[in-house]
């Protein structure tokens, strides 16, 4: 039986890259301290800030919401949750009910955005009409809605559950594609741009995916345990994650050190040149029209940005979250 390095009790998890094992109590402490340290080190939140947490119902965002709630009193920030119902049948219904249950348990306000209420269709149908892969359309919708809701509630930042493995695999993918501007967006945070974009923060930047899962399980948090029916089985990110984990066993700490070095070197890759305001919805865009308005205009006959923002206004008003 493995023993906890700190107290000698039965260990519940081995942390391979640190060549250590921890009991339940010391694992929770280890996980929460690392998130807190990341938030301080990278300057992710300030006192009195309103933090909108994007919660999909998966292990990462559920763990993120739980740990942020725990840290919010100590660090003096406010937490609100946002869930996007993507209209993917039973998968989405389950994800919504899990998120609602968790927010009730944590006594946190939850905003639920239902894509079908606005577009009349879900992500699978939108992807089909747009002739784009479902994951690409899903990502595009989520990025748009998260930003639009954050602007509307006056959030200071949006926190997402991207973990070390997600970000390291994405960074490698962008290097392989020589999309260096994309690499530059994979830091622990992006900055807000007044009125059109709310900055994103990634408190799990230094946290391996396996530990998000373990944190959700030791705290008995509900989370989605099935795979999205549209998730690509053979995506390059999945292979890269596997290789990075094998590398991390051979060279412990290589993954986290890669991302920490990247975080201190982001300005070599990224500049905010070319940021504009969408002609239709007044939110951030790289061109005259944002991708969300462009795709919905092509597929549905009109850009959906303005009515999406109207719908969000009503949602926010209904739960008295406007600032």
């Amino acid at each position, binding site marked *: 039986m*493995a023993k906890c390095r700190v107290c000698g009790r*039965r*260990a*519940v998890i081995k942390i391979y890259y640190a060549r250590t094992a921890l009991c339940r109590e010391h694992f929770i402490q280890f996980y929460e301290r690392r998130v807190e340290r990341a938030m301080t080190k990278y300057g992710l939140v300030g006192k009195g800030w309103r933090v909108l947490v994007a919660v999909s119902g998966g292990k990462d965002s559920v763990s993120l919401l739980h740990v942020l709630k725990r840290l919010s009193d100590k660090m003096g920030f406010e937490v609100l949750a946002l869930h996007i119902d993507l209209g993917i049948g039973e998968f989405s219904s389950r994800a919504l009910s899990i998120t609602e249950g968790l927010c009730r348990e944590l006594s946190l306000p939850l905003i639920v955005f239902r894509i079908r209420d606005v577009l009349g269709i879900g992500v699978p149908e939108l992807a089909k009409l747009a002739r784009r892969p479902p994951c690409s359309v899903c990502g595009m919708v989520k990025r748009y809605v998260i930003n639009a809701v954050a602007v509307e509630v006056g959030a200071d930042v949006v926190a997402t559950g991207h973990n070390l493995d997600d970000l390291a695999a994405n960074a490698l993918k962008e290097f392989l594609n020589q999309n260096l501007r994309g690499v530059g967006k994979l830091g622990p945070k992006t900055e807000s741009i007044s009125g059109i974009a709310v900055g994103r923060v990634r408190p799990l930047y230094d946290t391996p995916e396996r530990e998000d*899962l373990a944190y959700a399980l030791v705290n008995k948090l509900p989370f989605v345990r099935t795979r999205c029916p549209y998730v690509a089985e053979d995506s390059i990110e999945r292979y890269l994650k596997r290789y990075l984990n094998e590398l*991390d066993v051979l060279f412990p700490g290589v993954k986290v050190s890669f991302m920490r070095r990247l975080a201190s070197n982001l300005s070599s890759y990224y500049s905010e040149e070319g940021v504009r305001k969408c002609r239709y919805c007044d939110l951030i865009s790289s061109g005259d029209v944002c991708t969300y308005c462009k795709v919905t205009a092509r597929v549905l006959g009109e850009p959906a940005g303005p009515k999406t923002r109207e719908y969000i206004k009503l949602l926010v008003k209904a739960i008295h979250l406007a600032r």
Partner: protein
Amino acid sequence: MIVEVVTYPGGELVKVDVGSKDVVPVAVVLRRLGYRPYEVVVTVNGELVTEDDVVRDGDLVEVYKVMSVG
């Protein structure tokens, strides 16, 4: 002993033959399933365990593969 294992994501039930012993380390179950310990998180009867802990007849073993689900 046949160990019944629920694997995630998905919740598929898998029966694993671990030989004639009544008590086996989790590591043996993982090996039979083809998982390496750093790729998964395991619970036995709802409690998180390491691969050095043991599984007994009738235990509920759940193996969570570490990957994003959506």
